[in-house]
């Protein structure tokens, strides 16, 4: 730091005023640029450098793909709509969040989009609401996936396709065409009978005790996958929970109404290999 440097520094009022103006402009610009969070870059096809492109024709691109994703803040959307293909390595239903997770070894054109943390495999997930509509492939099958390309913040920012809302299976080496028939699609016509008992009004913070009975062919169905979702008036999901029916075809779930007072709707998605159902019930969260 040097002072003076053998010259007079005469600071006058106009200098201060000029400085004030310049600083005001600079600070405002900096704040506008630096302090306002820019939304992640995204468009229908996604930036070519960081996400695979969208293949049109098979299914429509969704305007808001995160609308029915539980806990959407765990993802950073890189491309709203993307398409990849590869060999399915694993298919697993997550009992905690109710999602259907698939690990996929991507075909060569898409593998460059994977990140170091992916370790060569892409995790794709179908949200409970879409599971009855998606043809679920089996391990070893080759399939094409349509969904959103995201970074998963809970998985050390791995690249992932979440959610997937369309899967097209195709035969691959060592896999017969018969095994490619989607299990869920086979019984899509079968309906489950679901009774949902839930309170219509709870005080803020109170418990929402939900009782579910599921029957199929007039007898209780055990091990039915249940997914509860509470959505607000604007249609935004605020609470999620996964469960399964017991041996008597019953499930009792407790949710906690820690929500701002208002009107909500409890949605229940039930699916079991061969059938599915969706029911809902209104809930009002009141002040006292």
């Amino acid at each position, binding site marked *: 730091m040097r002072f*003076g440097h053998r*010259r007079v520094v*005469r600071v006058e009022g106009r200098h*201060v005023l000029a*400085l*004030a103006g310049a600083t005001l402009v600079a600070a405002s610009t*900096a704040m506008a640029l630096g302090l306002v969070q820019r939304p992640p870059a995204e468009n229908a096809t996604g930036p070519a450098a960081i996400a695979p492109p969208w293949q049109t024709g098979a299914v429509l691109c969704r305007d808001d793909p995160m609308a029915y994703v539980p806990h959407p803040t765990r993802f950073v959307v890189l491309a709203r709509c993307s398409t990849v293909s590869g060999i399915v390595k694993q298919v697993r239903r997550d009992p905690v969040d109710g999602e259907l997770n698939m690990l996929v070894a991507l075909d060569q054109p898409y593998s460059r989009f994977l990140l170091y943390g992916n370790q060569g495999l892409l995790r794709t997930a179908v949200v409970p609401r879409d599971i009855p509509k998606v043809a679920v492939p089996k391990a070893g099958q080759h399939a094409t996936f349509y969904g959103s390309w995201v970074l998963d913040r809970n998985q050390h920012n791995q690249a992932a396709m979440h959610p997937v809302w369309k899967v097209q299976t195709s035969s691959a080496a060592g896999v017969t065409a018969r095994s490619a028939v989607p299990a869920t699609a086979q019984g899509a016509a079968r309906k489950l009978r679901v009774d949902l008992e839930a309170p219509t009004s709870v005080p803020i913070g109170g418990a929402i005790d939900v009782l579910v009975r599921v029957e199929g062919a007039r007898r209780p169905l055990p091990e039915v996958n249940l997914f509860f979702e509470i959505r607000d008036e604007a249609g935004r999901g605020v609470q999620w929970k996964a469960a399964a029916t017991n041996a008597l075809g*019953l499930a009792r779930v407790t949710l906690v109404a820690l929500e701002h007072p208002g009107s909500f709707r409890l949605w229940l998605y039930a699916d079991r290999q061969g059938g599915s159902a969706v029911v809902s019930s209104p809930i009002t969260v009141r002040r006292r």
Partner: protein
Amino acid sequence: MRLRHRGTRDRPADPPGTLRLELDLTDPVPPTPPTPPPAAVLDSPPDAADQPTAVPSGRHLGRRRPAQVLSWAALAVIVGAGGLLRFWNLDRVGFRGDEAVYAGQAAVLSGVEDLQRWFILMSRGNSNFLLYQRVVSVAYRLFGVSDVGARGVAAAFSTATIVVVFAIARTLYTRRAALIAAALLALSSYSVGLARLALLDATLTFLVTCAMLCLARWDRTERPGWLYGFGACVALAIQAKIVGVLLLPILATYLLVTRRRLPARMVGLLAVTFLVCLSPVLLDVAANAREFGDFLSRSSQRVSHVPWTYYPAVLAGREGSAVVVLWAVGIVAALVRRSRADALPGLWLGVFVGFYQLYPLKAFNYLLPSVPALCLLTARAVERLPRPSVLRVAATAVVVVLVAAGVVTHQWRALHDDSYAGLEEASRWLAANSPPGSGAMTLSHGSAQYVFAFYAHRDAYPFGRFRLATVLPGGKIVHALPSPRGVTPRDWVALWPPRLLEKGTVNYLVYYATSTTIDDPEEDPLVNTSTQQKFRDLIARYGGQLVHTVYVNHEGRAWIYRATRLRKKPVVTHKVSGGVVRVRGWGFTMNSTVKVVYHGRRVAVLRADDRGSLRVRFRVPARAQPDYYVVLTDSESNYASFSGLSTPRAKSKEGGRQPRTP
């Protein structure tokens, strides 16, 4: 380069061996034309009232007296206004977590033995020793333990800082600049907001400001007593918060920049003063070296995942953009002016802001020690507004409007900050309605649970992700386990909460919402973060029964749940002997009626005890089949089941002890 000191005529002769550097902001003296005026003249207004105090002039004493009186009166008004803002309605909202820790430590120091179970006389982090707590303990001895007492001490330190800032500006600049600096600090919403909290920052800021006053006075008067005073202030600042050690690099840099050398004797006395004043800390560290080292090494790994714009955003949010811009003008003006008088506040600001910007752990309160320096530089710039009357009035009006825009709205926010409203009320409810041996758990970044210990005298535990040791009731210290990839440990989300609930150590779960989640329901739901969601899940899993809601301004702010189960799901074991089935179960709803059904037929009804456990025996039903289930269901529909029974004739072995839940 020659840097000439303003007050050279008052300076005593140099001792042998001293290197003196003179600051000179003037051009070199040419033979002709006449020498330009010295920097002191350039930097100072022509009127005598604005002359720095270090250069007293007997000729102006007569004219200065009324100005001095006016100046003191103005200062009194400023300090009064600043004090009013800092002290007004201090007990409006109860303590937040860190405040409760400091107040609890102070209460222990003042002799309140009850609180020794929850508060240890040591910092869990790397930030502080106990100077502030000792001062508060004196207040507690005089007036009793309260939240107002602890906050009053912080407010008093903050108010006193206004006077010290005035004195610094009076030493470095002019009386007008001093009044402006004092006013800026008195009305700083950021300072007011932090002065109203029982945190360490107001005390640290006062001591840092005192240290800088000593340095400025020593620079002007050359009296070594001021330098020794600086050493004492640094030692005290370190005892308030360890970051006070940054004053030492400020001194070193200042000596380097001004090319001063200290005589060995002066350095020795400075070191002695420093060490003597620091001796309580040294003794404390020596006595607890292992714990201090442990705390320091672990807590220094804490990291805040925030963007680099965090601090500008904090200042803009708490002071208003207008005031931040005004501060920026002060900094830029100082950089352009490059006056020696600005060197001290500049270094002060640079060292503190630079350190915190680089330090990976960030918090909203860390920048407080920098605010007096900002006020000094800004006052210096404002003081030098245009002389022509019209321009001056216009410029003054602009400045006043800018400051007012920042002050009014943000001051209102500072005075009405209710971020943690509801915690005190929840604590007091627990104190009145829960058994003395019960325990509570609440959302925490490491400290919120101590609010319950302070107000309710109940064992309290955190729920959250943080890298900070937790003092369990009784004084046992639990460190967070090392986590893979350096992520924030999840001990107090995944590991400890279920254990404590299952042992029955925690009986109450308290969820609270900060004001930020109340302000805009559309954007900020009550449950937003992953940790909040997991706490809500914990409430549901352990049968949390809502027993009380704290409302603030008709909005729910805290919810108290009583756990009705000790396990997420009930479990049972069974044993068959002599045709009798003996069943033991755990984790049912406490004191609930439990029905035992075998293949659709009720075989027993009983009541779970107050821990949700049960024992029941019944005869093996006739025509029992191994694939028929025995299902035990409590009043809340929680159930556990097992199978494998067969008729007595089969003389079955003991049933599997593995609990089964279909």
